[in-house]
């Protein structure tokens, strides 16, 4: 009840509410600016969600097609907050020993042999062997034992199996890891958790419930142009515009693999490398030579005949 009263007093009081909203708008714009400085163009909605993630201390689940810059969010955000980025790349068969901790058993074996000559009581020896010296910290344990709150990126969580997801949930709710031989390790600081998923497997409702959600679409023309200008400043303004217009057209086609932002940047680099400074229908043949940077499957490639390329190029 106290919460609701406080809220009514705080948020719904007119003047206070207006200042809150104004502050927030300023914060969002500020974060957008900082992210841009870190090389990431974020919409206001994404910046607002990131701020909310900080406020509520909840993980953020980011979904979207491959190549829309899900992983980059975490990297840029870590730069903005000048925090450490700890990355856990998930894969099928990922287990506790690769994700949380592992005993350095070679060293332990060595220690056992050395301690044979030692006169100390057995319990003391054992305690010595199972001390933090022999503990290898994997990303998740690392993330909760940092002095400064790091950004923890759990990449492509859908590739790990359901069992790991359940384990992850436990970590994300309590921020503690129990190691049987050592005891429970509590988080010194709470990491900021960003989870990405490509949708190769449906995630559990429990995990989704715990997270804030953000779906990232392919960028529109203006956003992609801004990205190209930041990431490939050597491309002239006209070329950048044409490249982006071309890629946007290509994305509208029926393709098996739609080009992501990384492909756009690769292709820009390829064009520059080939000395192409303008895209027009005359240069279709030369453009086709560079398309391997943009189109990644054979079936898609067969659709790009000189005619098609010339037609797209003419509209750019």
């Amino acid at each position, binding site marked *: 009840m106290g919460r*609701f009263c406080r809220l009514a007093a705080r948020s*719904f009081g007119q003047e206070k509410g207006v200042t809150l909203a104004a502050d927030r708008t300023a914060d969002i714009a500020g974060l957008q600016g900082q992210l841009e400085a870190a090389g990431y163009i974020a919409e206001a909605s994404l910046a607002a*969600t990131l701020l909310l993630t900080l406020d509520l201390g909840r993980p953020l689940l980011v979904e979207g097609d491959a190549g829309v810059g899900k992983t980059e969010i975490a990297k840029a955000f870590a730069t903005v907050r000048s925090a450490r980025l700890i990355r856990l790349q998930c894969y099928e068969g990922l287990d506790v020993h690769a994700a949380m901790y592992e005993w350095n058993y070679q060293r332990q074996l060595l220690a056992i042999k050395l301690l044979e000559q030692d006169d100390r009581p057995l319990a003391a020896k054992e305690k010595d062997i199972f001390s933090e010296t022999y503990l290898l910290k994997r990303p998740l344990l690392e993330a909760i034992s940092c002095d400064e709150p790091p950004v923890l990126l759990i990449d492509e969580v859908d590739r790990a199996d359901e069992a790991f997801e359940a384990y992850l949930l436990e970590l994300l709710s309590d921020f503690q890891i129990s190691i049987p031989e050592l005891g429970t390790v509590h988080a010194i600081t709470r990491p900021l958790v960003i989870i990405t998923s490509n949708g190769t497997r449906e995630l559990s409702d429990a995990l989704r419930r715990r997270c804030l959600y953000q779906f990232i679409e392919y960028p529109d023309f203006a956003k992609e142009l801004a990205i190209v200008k930041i990431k490939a400043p050597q491309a002239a303004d006209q070329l950048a515009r044409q490249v982006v217009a071309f890629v946007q057209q290509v994305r509208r086609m029926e393709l098996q693999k739609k080009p992501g932002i990384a492909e756009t940047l690769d292709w820009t680099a390829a064009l520059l490398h080939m000395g192409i400074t303008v895209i027009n229908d005359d240069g279709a043949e030369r453009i086709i030579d560079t398309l391997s940077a943009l189109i990644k499957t054979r079936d898609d490639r067969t659709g790009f005949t000189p005619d098609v390329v010339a037609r797209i190029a003419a509209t750019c």
Partner: protein
Amino acid sequence: MLTIEAAERSDVGTDLLTRLAGFTAFLHGNGYGVSAADTVDIVDAAAQTGILNQAILRWNLKSLLCKRFEEWQRFDALFDAYFLPPNKCVFVQRDAAPGTEEVTSGGNDDGAHESPATAKHGEADAAAAAGHGASREENLSSTDFSELNQADQARKVEALMRRLARRLKHLVVRREVRSQRGRRLDLQSTIRQSVSTGGTPLRFAWKTRRRVRPRLVLLLDVSRSMNAYSFFYLRLARALCNELKDVHCFIFHTRITSVAEALRDPDPWRAQERLNVLAVGWGGGTRIGECLQEFNRVQGSRLVHSRTGVIIFSDGYDTGDTALLADALGTLRRRARRMIWLNPLLNQPDFTPVARGMRTAMPYLDLLAPGGDLAAIERVLPQLIESLQ
């Protein structure tokens, strides 16, 4: 949600709070998986950021209340319906795929008590007639789904699907996991365990192959020619949906619609209502190619992966373009692990795949099997499981 004390303080704050809390209920009524805990969260978030800026409120609620892509797509429309007066709904972005927007009406009064049962069938009809892909061939009359809830055959179907589900649970993949008894020695684990015995490996650790359940995508043809079988297949699909988690069911005729959510609804009558809304066009013409292409475009990349088995229930009578069908099937085949076609007509002794659609589809299929009734499905079950392996 609110205590009596709060209700007594009937000031502006409480009204706003009720309205905000009502939004969660409104979303719940529209099939979102939101709970009371989410209400507390949005109130918390509102306390942090205020509620007077519409954009910020929208973004906050969106990230807090949406849990998956379908919900994300529909959110803006629902937000506008609930919070904006009707004449301001203009900037709703309706780029969502047709058929995904079944917004329950009446968000502008206190929408907290809306339930999906109030979604008006007539409205859905009108919407379909007004646009998104409706055609002259489409059947706009309503379909009686009460047959779905009759118990006579239901139990047998459920038993059969439970058997299929149990068999599917035993499929294995190459990836290995540690286990008590296994086929191969897990050297890493063995050495790790030997630490406790002073470096002498007294106990061995083993690896075994991991079990995994394939994802199933069911595509049910509910066009006129399939009338005799549609309900049977829908019942089959529902039984399977309730047995296994990773089953996704779609019905198609001249358009394709997801019915998995509706089939999973634990309340049979509400499921019936939801199906009523979804099944506009049931028993109409068939355009398999277009439907599959639509499926590839909207759902394909998300839903179909290398562990997915796609099962199509259709007689293959197609009025659409066969080139389109071949193209769509080819795309789907490349994405999926297995493609299986159950054809109810295959039971007949003099059957030859003369239907245009069927002839086109043959090269893309891993298995073409009869499936007109329960006995036929039962016979084909071992083949089905083998081909999903």
